[in-house]
């Protein structure tokens, strides 16, 4: 099948539910940012040390979950297309919490703000964290604007909140694993 159709050449695109909307529509902004997050995660993954197998596995799951989430954001809640979507697992957020706890076990307790940076893989993880936070902001805007009681969007909202935390802890974990100490903020 062709990647392009030219149907978007005049600034509109189709949602998964078929509606034609401008490319700056709040729903497009929301899943576009999710796409950006997934791409940045791909960059982080490309820098991950090979021996960190459990983190590689985390990333495969996270990137797949973000695809599912993107489809939900691309579908209007009243559409019959909803029936074709796959809900995220009910445990996605708690699964991440377990991973955050596991990574945090080897880290010193955080008592001060740290500056984003350090090893390239950790610096990219911080970038991913901030893109994730933007995704969250887009999503809350979409939920408010669509005024819809959508349980799946609520699940995605919690997931993104937890994913930001995971990426923060991951950055610290990777810096430590690669021998770089946290750089704290000095007033």
């Amino acid at each position, binding site marked *: *099948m*062709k990647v*392009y*159709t*030219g*149907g978007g*050449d*005049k600034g*509109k695109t*189709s949602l*998964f*539910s*078929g*509606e*034609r909307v401008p490319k700056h529509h709040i729903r497009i902004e929301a899943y576009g940012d999710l796409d950006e997050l997934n791409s940045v995660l791909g960059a982080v993954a490309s820098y991950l040390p090979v021996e960190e197998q459990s983190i590689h596995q985390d990333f495969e799951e996270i990137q797949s979950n973000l695809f599912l989430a993107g489809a939900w954001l691309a579908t209007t809640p009243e*559409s*019959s*297309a909803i029936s*074709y979507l796959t809900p995220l697992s009910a445990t996605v957020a708690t699964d991440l919490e377990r991973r955050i706890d596991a990574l945090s076990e080897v880290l010193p307790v955080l008592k001060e703000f740290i500056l984003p940076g350090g090893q390239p893989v950790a610096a990219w993880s911080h970038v991913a964290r901030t893109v994730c936070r933007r995704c969250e902001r887009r999503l809350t805007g979409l939920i408010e604007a669509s005024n819809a009681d959508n349980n799946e969007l609520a699940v995605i909202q919690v997931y993104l909140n937890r994913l930001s935390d995971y990426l923060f802890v991951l950055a610290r974990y990777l810096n430590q694993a690669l021998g770089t100490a946290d750089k704290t903020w000095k007033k």
Partner: protein
Amino acid sequence: MAAILYSISVEKRVWLNDEVFELICSRPPEFQFLAGQYVTIIHHGEERDYTLLSPPGATALRFLIKLVAGGKLSGMLANLVPGSVLGMSRAKGYLIFRPTPRPVFFVATGVGIAPFVAMATGGLRGFTLLHGARTDSGFFYRQELAAAALHYIPCFSGDNVSCPDLPSLFRGYVTEYIKDHLQPGLYDFYLCGSVAMIRDMTHFLDQHSPGTRIYSEAFD
């Protein structure tokens, strides 16, 4: 290269005209799909996407294949003997029917008719189908489709000398028919065919009937 998840064996090949044939293959019991989806067929290192012509409940898998000049895979598929084994991916794609209270239009050119055959033979009714072809023999499955559709409109864009004698025939491209006949309103459109058709139809509908939903799949 697409991941090969299934092996299918060729059961039969039926030529529909000089350049298009139907390939009928075995269905792996665990293979699931929705009407309108496609798979990647892989054979001897070559691969290409083909929409399933069969409805989801079918016992065999049928594909509508155009023999492309210089096309490596279609050339091989055109010469396979029964029993030949092909690799196949999982089902993919989103040109699947979404139930709606709006009037539904299917628009297909050439072998782009395949997803709509799958939907119609799977029991879908009540749609208007615009079927574009350049030759009389290019209106594949027209009897089955006309029986299922609320309105079946063959659009003939070939040489007028060989113009077929079909009920409700329109002489011109599918896009011309829509531009001439569609009243402004809210519709659900499903487009499958060439990039040019999809681009022109999409831009026209955006302007003529804003609010219309459009689902599309383009191929070479």
